[in-house]
């Protein structure tokens, strides 16, 4: 509590309290190329059509940040792109405004719970195995290949954290995709995952942001990495690199838009979320940012070339695995502590 | 004397970039001598001292010590004691440690070093302050520590760079006598830099007067004072009345010099007629009355009572004269007409 008050106090002193009143609607994405695409497809045309001025900010996730913002009552963010576990946590904690799907009107187009009480799904990303085909012409196929340091010498990139890394380790160790969370739920399964990670510990470079992994791959610091599929495809296209992806065993999850509870701009925020949840609007995204979108109507509007690059394409989606949000909501603290202890050894 | 010089500076020049600070300088210093380098600031005297100490290298010429050329000898191997203007005591060492420093550097046994430190401190009467820090001492005490430190290792030469500049007048005069006393007792060779002419006159065996990187004159204090070689020396040392004129005639017992105001002054030097000269007359050589050979009728413009003498400003036929009169002339008042007189021997004639 006091920590939040402190953070607020510093924020107020730094920026002046006048900023809290009479401000523009603030939308918060994850920055980088992704937000640039969102700006083009969503934000600019929203302001054009409604006349509501938008201000953009970006963040890199972290439940503590939005929790502190709502907890202190100084809400200077309105619409935020969150990951699946932040969506579930915040919805359970009551820090998001419930969405009025009747008003948005596209609930039936969203599959698999991506139109939820507090969140409107906006893109589905995957940890997929990526590599530079100019460096590894006979590229790896599966996560097991990531462990094959004889065939593919060099460093590997993994996201620094328990989430994703443990699943990938189990998949590489031969656990079938549909069983990984059952295995991880047992102490033996956790042991097994860390034991598998031990095998390549000295060959791993841990990345922390989507831009960083592209930089590592681009500079040859790593020869292969678990990377965000859309960002990698985009980099390959825009920077003319020979990056390749394997969706075999890719782990995917959906990011959503939420509206922070108590915002003074609630009506405009809802209007923005509704605007960004319409099929014709969402259908324009994959051309710029090649992630699949959770709106099936929008997916059906894509050209075959656009669709073929995405996780959802029939030739790609064979055995990709959804990340179990509730497993991580329950276990993130314990497994993060364990992961950090393992990393520090 | 046919002694060979102990320190010899032969044709020494020093330039920093384009500016020539010392210009083909010639100076011999003999063993046991106290030589002052006297001059205004920027005249090159300190530069010469730092070259003798080895902190600067001559640009041209060479320096010899006891017959050996020392231009390439590092300062720490020259075995010269040095006393700095700001004393340069090591603030993190006690008085005894400061004085013992040269002995420590020479790896002299601890017990012997102790005796010598004690002796050096006794010599400057500071034995009771051996354990103090320099910051706990007065300026005069610090100066004496610096002196003890420069003497404790019995150096061949002691160099002093305006060592008394920071002391007040009383202490300064006391220290002048102390240093002179030490010089006599220990038979030291001392090179002493100062810009204070009275200090140089009091202490030195010989004085070298510096001006613009050159030595204007070298000589005993008497010679420098009474027979200055140039106008610069005459004006820099003590107070002087300078009268400029032309040699009118020369006879067996001296010459007559004509001043522009038609005054004629007799001097005992024999000079070439027609030459432009300056007459140097020290204020204390001026007397009241009509006797002495040269008499000028003047008017008193100012008088100041100085305690041991009376200082008067006189308006003479050829400008202002300054006189030092005995206090018995106390009756003088501004505006009074008087006769001022001096003998031909009181005058010293310089090239103009």
């Amino acid at each position, binding site marked *: 509590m006091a*920590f939040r008050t402190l953070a607020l106090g510093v924020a107020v002193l730094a920026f002046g309290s006048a900023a809290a009143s009479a401000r523009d609607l603030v939308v918060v994405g994850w920055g980088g190329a992704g937000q640039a695409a969102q700006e083009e497809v969503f934000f600019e045309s929203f302001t054009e059509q409604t006349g509501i001025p938008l201000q953009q900010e970006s963040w890199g996730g972290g*439940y*503590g940040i939005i929790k502190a913002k709502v907890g202190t009552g100084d809400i200077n963010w309105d619409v935020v792109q969150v990951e699946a576990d932040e969506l579930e946590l915040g919805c359970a*904690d009551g820090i998001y405004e419930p969405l009025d799907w009747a008003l948005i009107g596209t609930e039936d187009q969203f599959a698999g719970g991506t139109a939820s009480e507090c969140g409107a799904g906006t893109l589905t990303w995957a940890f997929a195995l990526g590599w530079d085909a100019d460096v590894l012409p006979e590229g790896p196929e599966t996560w097991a290949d990531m462990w094959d340091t004889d065939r593919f010498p060099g460093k590997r990139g993994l996201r620094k954290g328990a989430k994703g890394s443990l699943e990938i380790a189990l998949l590489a160790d031969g656990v079938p995709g549909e069983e990984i969370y059952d295995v991880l739920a047992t102490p033996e399964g956790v042991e097994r995952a860390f034991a598998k990670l031990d095998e390549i510990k000295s060959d791993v470079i841990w990345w922390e942001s989507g831009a960083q992994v592209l930089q590592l791959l681009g500079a040859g610091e790593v020869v292969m990495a678990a990377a965000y599929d859309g960002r990698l495809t985009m980099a390959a296209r825009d920077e003319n690199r020979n990056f390749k992806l394997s969706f075999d065993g890719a782990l995917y999850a959906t990011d959503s838009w939420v509206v922070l509870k108590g915002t003074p701009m609630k009506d405009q925020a809802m209007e923005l979320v509704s605007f960004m949840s319409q099929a014709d609007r969402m259908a324009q995204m994959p051309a710029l940012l090649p992630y699949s979108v959770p709106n099936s109507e929008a997916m059906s509007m894509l050209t075959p070339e656009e669709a073929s690059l995405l996780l959802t394409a029939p030739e790609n989606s064979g055995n990709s695995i959804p990340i179990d949000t*509730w497993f991580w909501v329950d276990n993130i603290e*314990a497994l993060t502590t364990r992961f950090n202890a393992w990393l520090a050894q | 004397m046919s002694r060979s010089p102990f320190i010899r500076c032969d044709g020494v020049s020093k330039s920093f970039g384009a500016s020539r600070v010392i210009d083909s300088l010639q100076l011999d210093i003999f063993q046991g001598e106290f030589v002052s380098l006297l001059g205004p600031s920027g005249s090159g005297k300190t530069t010469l001292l730092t070259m003798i100490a080895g902190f600067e290298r001559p640009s041209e010429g060479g320096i010899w010590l006891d017959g050996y050329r020392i231009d390439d000898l590092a300062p720490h*191997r*020259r075995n010269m004691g040095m006393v700095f203007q700001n004393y*340069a005591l090591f603030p993190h060492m006690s008085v005894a440690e400061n004085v013992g*420093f040269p002995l420590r550097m020479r790896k002299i046994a601890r017990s012997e070093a102790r005796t010598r430190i004690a002796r050096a401190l006794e010599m400057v009467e500071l034995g009771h302050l051996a354990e103090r820090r320099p910051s706990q001492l007065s300026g005069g005490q610090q100066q004496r520590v610096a002196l003890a430190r420069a003497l404790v290792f019995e150096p061949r030469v002691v160099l002093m760079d305006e060592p008394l500049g920071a002391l007040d007048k009383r202490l300064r005069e006391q220290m002048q006598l102390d240093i002179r006393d030490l010089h006599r007792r220990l038979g030291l060779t001392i090179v002493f830099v100062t810009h204070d002419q009275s200090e140089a006159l009091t202490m030195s065996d010989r004085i070298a007067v510096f001006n613009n990187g050159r030595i204007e004159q070298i000589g005993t204090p008497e010679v420098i004072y009474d027979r200055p070689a140039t106008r610069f020396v005459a004006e820099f040392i003590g107070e002087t009345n300078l009268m400029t004129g032309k040699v009118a005639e020369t006879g067996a017992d001296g010459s007559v010099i004509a001043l522009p105001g038609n005054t004629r002054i007799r001097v005992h030097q024999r000079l070439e007629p027609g030459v432009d000269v300056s007459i140097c007359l020290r204020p204390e050589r001026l007397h009241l009355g009509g006797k002495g050979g040269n008499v000028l009728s003047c008017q008193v413009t100012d008088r100041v009572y100085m305690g041991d003498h009376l200082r008067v400003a006189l308006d003479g036929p050829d400008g202002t004269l300054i006189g030092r009169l005995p206090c018995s002339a106390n009756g003088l008042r501004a505006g009074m007409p008087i006769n001022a007189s001096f003998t031909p021997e009181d005058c010293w004639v310089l090239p103009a």
Partner: protein
Amino acid sequence: MTGSRTLGIRAFALVLPLILFLALFFVWPLVSIATTAVSDNEVARAFPNLGRVIDEWDGVSPPTPAMQEALVADIRETAQTAMGDAVRRLNTQTSGFRSLFGRTQQAVERAEGAVDLPSIDERWEDPVFWNTIRSALPPYTTRFLLGALDLQRGEAGVEAMPPDQSVHRQVFLRTIGISALVTLFCALIGLPFAMLLAVTTGWVRQVLMAAVLLPMWTSVLVRCMAWLIILQKDGVMAEIIRTLSGLREAVPLLFTRTGVLIAMTHVMLPFMILSIYSVLIAMPKSLMMAAASMGARPLAAFRTVLLPLAMPGIVSGALLVFMTSLGFYILPALLGGGDDQLISSFVANYAIRQANWSLASALGLVLLIVTVAIFALYQRLSDRLARR
């Protein structure tokens, strides 16, 4: 009398801004961090009914109907955000609370009157979850402070955490070790550089000074990026090392301890140099000349005169570098490997990712105590030096 009192009030009014400043920026943050580190009132606030009845339970048998009833009442009465805080706190202690509560809350909302908890989720029969709630009811706890030191309260009192969950002590030691190394490197490079700076004049000194100051005016993040490029696999540094050592294989620098040390030393070096330089420049030049005139060789003069006199600058520079290094975050995160992270990255992880402000505060408090202890040590040492 009144006059002197007015004067007193006026004097107080003059220092009031200072007192307020200190209170606002020094006392208050410290107090709030300290209270956050030990306060643990979320659970007690969210479960007032359960708190009244749970003490009668023995802790091993299945939960009593009274407890179940009280829990359901609490779920119905407590505000959603307060319950969210409590659940987050409980989940940091026992994994699974979140899904358990999510499911239970939904079921309780739908049902009217009494609810049979084990029929919603069989985990409610497990005493572990109830014991977790009971252990979290006291408003103050040493759990987070102990956790910051890899300790926990077990049956036999305070004990070490299992090794696979212990990381803080190791990271504290690593933080201190890396900071000490950076300090050492800064001193070894900074002293000669400061000496050079002190003896040069004119444009040479201007250039050297610029070499010190310009990096200091550049943001740490920008310098990080520069080092990222210099240290990378085919970067300048790797090339230089390859040329000098004659090795054919590239020496890895990026994402290694070496890289972190190089970059941290570069970032902290100006502070050391300026600290030593300020002491050297105030030192009369004649001291070194005096030492030489008394027969000290250059090395002896350095050891006996310059080094002791520069020591205050070296020590205060070392203190500055060391203390600042303790708090480094961005640089090791960008240039280091997994085992090069310092304690700040853990504080950030707990505060930003997990919203576990208590543990973040506890780690911060331990770091503060370590820092103060080191400063106290410095004070005692410098006092002793000054007395000598």
